[in-house]
């Protein structure tokens, strides 16, 4: 079979020489945005198939060959489409270790998928997956029938492929710089991963700070990592034309960057490298999440919902909130570093000094959080006519603020001593996680929707669990009390 496929492939390949050319940077219009063909292919194929090289070819080539079907060119590639949920695999009589099923077989079972979908009353993960399978099949078909993307002619008009003939299409499917260079930069942003280089520099910086004990080298490496992130984030702002804080991916990106920046400033001002160590540790956590948690954090740039289309409020309110999360994240990392150091018996600063260090980050975070919540209230008043509406997102940010306020007040009243302050600050960050991720991944779809079993909720749950274990460890009796006094 494979042999035959290779022969067929080589026969057809002449007709499809278009798809072998450098078509990466050709602008196409899809999902409401102009983007390079490479990014369009990446997003489309990532959604459709778990294979990085669908049927052994690049995503760009596979997408191109499928798109040419509408002109009776190209190939009828039978791409394996994603099937992820176990019940869906059983319904489709699949081998449960596989994660995909070719389109032709899915098409043959379309009735089964539809009637199974109709038979599920609750909106659970299984139903959502069946929904997704259907939308993958629809997307695949609209790619093949020429309605998934448009190309631009020399007069700046966009045409769907189904409205063109092959010769005109070839005339329009070319690189075009009249519409600016944002799409070309987007190609470079998505094809070369500048954040991976930043990760490398941060690893070296952590090594320099903690093992080599060379703070200046650590600061230098961190500055390079920050510079790479500034450029990357700047590129994203240029491409999307808006503040880089409009979805989960971007807020994680911006908070990691913000934490490293705040930490760098604190390190220089307070002359203590511990801030930088915590800041870049958090930064690297964020970068790892962005690289590896693509199910939860979607990197692609997509158009905004109408209410967010206000750059002034978006950049002031969300930036303030995210920077406050960043400052509180530094306090969280510091608290955990101190807990683990103590547990492992590593010589540490006095609890008073630890508290002071953490406290400095918490104050910045709390002031910014309060300011951010109020800015949100003013934006809501300006856009919806109400300052406050007990919407879960705003309520949870208030809860987070209240929890930090309770700890700070407890500290003033001497209810909370320096020993208990540290684990409390570590735990308090869970309220930020809840306001940031929990509202979207657990509360938003309604608790009834069984949102618990999905990626985001699993992430939050594991984070809570790990944090609880670390705090329990702190309070368990341990061996090295001598360096605490």
């Amino acid at each position, binding site marked *: 079979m494979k042999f035959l496929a290779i022969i067929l492939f080589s026969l057809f390949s002449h007709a499809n020489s278009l798809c072998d050319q450098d078509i990466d940077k050709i602008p196409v*219009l*899809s*999902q*409401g*945005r102009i983007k390079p063909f490479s990014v369009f292919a990446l997003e489309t194929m990532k959604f459709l198939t778990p294979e990085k090289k669908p049927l052994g070819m690049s995503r760009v080539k596979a997408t191109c060959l499928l798109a040419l079907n509408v002109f009776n060119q190209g190939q009828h590639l039978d791409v394996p489409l994603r099937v992820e949920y176990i019940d869906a695999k059983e319904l489709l009589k699949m081998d449960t270790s596989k994660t995909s099923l070719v389109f032709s077989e899915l098409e043959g079972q379309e009735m089964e998928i539809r*009637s199974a979908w*109709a*038979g599920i009353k*609750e909106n659970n993960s299984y139903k959502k997956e069946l929904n997704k399978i259907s939308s993958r099949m629809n997307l695949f078909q609209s790619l093949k029938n020429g309605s998934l993307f*448009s190309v631009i002619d020399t007069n700046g008009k*966009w045409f769907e492929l189904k409205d063109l003939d092959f010769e005109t299409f070839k005339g329009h499917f070319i690189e075009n710089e009249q519409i600016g260079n944002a799409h070309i930069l987007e190609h470079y942003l998505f094809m070369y991963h500048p954040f991976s280089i930043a990760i490398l520099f941060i690893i070296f910086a952590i090594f320099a700070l903690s093992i080599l004990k060379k703070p200046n080298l650590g600061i230098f490496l961190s500055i390079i990592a920050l510079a790479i992130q500034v450029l990357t984030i700047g590129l994203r702002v240029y491409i999307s034309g808006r503040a880089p804080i409009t979805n989960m991916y971007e807020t994680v990106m911006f908070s990691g960057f913000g934490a490293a920046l705040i930490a760098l400033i604190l390190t220089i001002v307070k002359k203590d490298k511990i801030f930088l160590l915590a800041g870049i540790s958090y930064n690297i956590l964020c970068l790892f999440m962005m690289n590896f948690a693509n199910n939860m954090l979607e990197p692609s740039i997509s*158009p905004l*919902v*109408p*209410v967010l*289309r*206000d750059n002034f*409020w978006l950049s002031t309110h969300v930036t303030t909130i995210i920077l406050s999360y960043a400052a509180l994240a530094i306090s969280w990392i510091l608290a955990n570093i101190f807990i683990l150091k103590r547990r492992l018996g590593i010589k540490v600063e006095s*609890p*008073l000094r630890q*508290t*002071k260090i953490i406290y400095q980050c918490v*104050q*910045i975070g709390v*002031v910014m959080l*309060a*300011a951010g919540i*109020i800015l949100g*209230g*003013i934006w809501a008043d*300006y856009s919806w*006519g*109400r*300052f*406050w509406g*007990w919407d*879960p997102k705003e*309520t*949870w940010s208030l*809860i987070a603020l*209240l*929890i930090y*306020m*309770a700890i700070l*007040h*407890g500290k*003033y*009243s*001497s*209810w909370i*001593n*320096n*020993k208990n302050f540290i684990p409390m600050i570590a735990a308090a960050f869970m309220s930020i996680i809840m306001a940031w991720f929990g509202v979207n991944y*657990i*509360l*938003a*779809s*309604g*608790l*009834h929707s069984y949102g618990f079993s999905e990626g985001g909720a699993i992430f939050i749950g594991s984070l809570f669990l790990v944090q609880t274990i670390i705090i329990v460890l702190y309070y368990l009796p341990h061996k090295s009390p001598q360096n605490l006094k």
Partner: protein
Amino acid sequence: MKTLQKIERFIGQVKFAVIIILVFAIYLIYGTFQESYHGAEYANRAVYKSIGFMLVQFLMFISIFTATLFRLPFKKNLRGFYVLHLGLLLLFIGSFVSYHAGIDSSILLSPNTPSQHILSQQEDELVFTSPTKQATIPMPFSASKKMINQTIGKVTLKEYLPFADEKLEWVDHDAANSSNHSSTYLLVNKMFSEKITLSLYRKSEFEAGANLGPLSLHYLPSGFFECFKKNTSTFVLWDSAKQACIDSATFQSSKAPNGMDVIKSNYAQAEEIFIPRLSPLPVYISEEKKLVIKQESPLRLLNRAAFQDKPHLFLFGKNIAYFDRDTEKWIGQSFDKEKKFIELPWMGFQLELKNHYENKYPILVPHYVTPIQDNNKLIAGATKALKIEINDKGSTKSHWLKSFKPLKINLSDGEYNFYFKSKSKKLPFQLILDKFRAQKDPGTNRDASYESFVTLVDGDTSKHHIYMNNPLKYKDLTFYQSTFQKNPKTGETLSGLTVNFDPGRWLKYLGSLLLVLGSFYHFVLRRKIVSLKGKSL
């Protein structure tokens, strides 16, 4: 006196602040989970606008207030503290003013029609009209069921259910005959199962037909089963007065020159003409040479050919009939003691008769349930209901008014009407929607923006453009673009605006400003950190 002072001192203490902040936070956490599970309206009624929650906020206010008082006279190093806490107090006062005197409503504008009424988004009212009275009664703003017990003439308002689901109940009636029956069927296959209740009883809320995807159900008097199981003619004729099927031998069909079927029947010594394409009732030609339908005739004629292509199931209580496309024949089947299930010829469906009554009819009775939200929709408890008792001529009967379905009752002194509506207010001016525009992101179905072009009439007229992040401000009121909807009947687009009056706004803004400046000063600018004087473990 001493205890009072002690209490005062405790309330002014930081420890009390910690307790009250934590109680407030826990209350809020509870509120967000309630909202996620039960929906925003329930959370508002049960938590955010409940007395308990108000009390916690009040205690928080008192705590901040006494804490500030205790730190007087003025100390220089507490400047940040004073400003911050004064800001908080102003925020609380501002919110209280907004809550009490503010307006949070909406208005729906139809194209080229003046609108003047704004509707409250949360409060409902009962509108009641009788031949002698008209009244508007506010419904309680509660999350659980509430007894109203208010009597107006013959009418007593009983319990109000803000969240209810309807349960099916069977009620006796005294007009039992073969054309007044009602049944519940269960339609199942491997993937699908649905209970369907159908009724021929006039007063029942249930209909005599249903559509389940491609399958259509028709519920008919049991006497007509005889017509349907025969295969002598595609036409069936029955007498609805006598509940009888008329033998096909008594009528013949022919074709008119234009191709329409014409049926002549000779039943009970009367000749009738039917044109099934026009009406199931007989027709005659009037003196003005016009075709007139005999509305009062008891005879009905049906062309079964129209029900042969797509799945149609005819139900007659204990009997059913359908057209089998394999044998090209109409098939009649009956439920009995041995035959609990009937196999249907479509997609492995089976039909079971669950209930069948001639002397009872089905009604839907509301029961209170805590609502459940799924994907921003209520899947339980979406109905509001009010029990209304009516005492007429010495006998008392109760009725349910449900959600926005009006209730009409005829009594000895005339017609009584009841319906729910959102509490409304009349504006001193009018708004007219000139144009509504919704823009999509290119190449998608996603909304990019929606905008309303309105004319405001208040003596003079003025034109305004309202869109997201650009509201219209007029006479202390602010109009925000919030939604739009299509009128399914006319196809017109209606524009939904949120209407807002917030007298506490400037207090809240001032409070916010003080809060931010104060906390910035307190935490960041002040060098000395008061509480970090070093306490040993």
